[in-house]
């Protein structure tokens, strides 16, 4: 075998071992790498007790209410299976609105309501001008790619 081929094989072998090691390490850390829990996980009790946690979900349309001074808000998070009511006192980011994703950090109280200390707004992967329909967006670039 040529020395060059040997070195190449050596590099490829090391790369394979390393990627397997990384794969198993990441699998082991799976839960620690989650930035937030879903309402389903919260209601199934898959959350650490007595600790501040982050919960992420979609803000249910029509669920958002504000107090008179505008400082207190209540809304409901939902995912595929469950809903979770949230209470928050403070200023929310610009992108926080109904029908969009958000993340709340706080504790779940004895009534099953999440009392948030911080609200972060998530934004989705759609980029389009105001007024554009979702179906139009899907049919804008995809046909060009198909015809390439």
């Amino acid at each position, binding site marked *: 075998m040529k020395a060059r081929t040997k070195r190449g094989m050596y590099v490829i072998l090391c790369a394979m071992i390393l990627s397997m090691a990384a794969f198993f390490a990441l699998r082991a850390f799976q839960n620690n790498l989650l930035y937030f829990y879903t309402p389903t996980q919260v209601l199934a009790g898959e959350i650490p007790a007595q600790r501040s946690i982050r919960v992420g979900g979609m803000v249910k349309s029509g669920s958002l209410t504000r107090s008179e001074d505008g400082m207190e808000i209540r809304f409901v998070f939902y995912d595929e299976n469950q809903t979770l009511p949230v209470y928050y006192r403070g200023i929310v980011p*610009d992108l*926080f609105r109904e029908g*969009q994703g958000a993340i709340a950090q706080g504790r779940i109280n004895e009534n099953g309501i999440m009392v948030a200390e911080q609200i972060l707004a998530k934004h*989705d992967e759609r980029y389009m001008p105001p007024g554009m329909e979702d179906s139009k967006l899907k049919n804008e670039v995809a046909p060009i790619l198909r015809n390439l």
Partner: protein
Amino acid sequence: MIDAGTIQARKWLSPPFFFDKALKWAPWCLLTGMVIFIAALWWALFKSPPDYLQGESVRIMYLHVPSAWMSLFLYVVMAGCAACGLIFRLKIGFYLSAACAPIGAAFTLAALVTGSIWGKPTWGAWWVWDARLTTELILFFLYLGYIGVRSAVDDQNKADRLAAVVALVGLINIPIIHFSVHFWNTLHQGASVFRMDGPSIAISMLIPLLLMTLAYMILSLAACLESTCCEIMRREHGRRWLQSRLDMH
């Protein structure tokens, strides 16, 4: 038996030949890159529409996303060149690899900083420790580690090989960064362009984005060529071929 293609390739990979070509092409790349960059910037700032949700702040995307793409792309190029250096004992591979590192590190920093500036008004936080942001920060440290190893070892040939190993080990981070938003719950949103069911970005926004990416590519090439020449001059110092060229200028 050596065919014409191999001879051509060997010619290109020899430092003197590369040096001559790189010095000649770098200014043209810089000029082309700047022209495209200005056109892309104008398109991004004035011609492209605001976003349905974010409004005008979406325009940070045209700097943030290409920077992030380049940070990944240059790392792959850097590691690829380093691997060629290791396997084929190719000096120019190590030189190119060394040239990519600071450029890639700069793009990584640019992606992190523009992301932070974008994150505050949209998400409501400058920084969060979610999987995407954390793995991109690790990429920055990998670049710094590579640069650090290269300058820490006195024997230059040894430094080349050690740094190449660092670059190759770090390569595992690249798919993790890309798929981080897919594997884990993150605050960062999923991919908009490179996704299975087609891009979810309007074409009026995709064009300036791709144009900006092209500009970054060409500007990176210009910087990489110049930087490789610097590395060649540093490493081949005192060689007759280099001295004769330096005397000419």
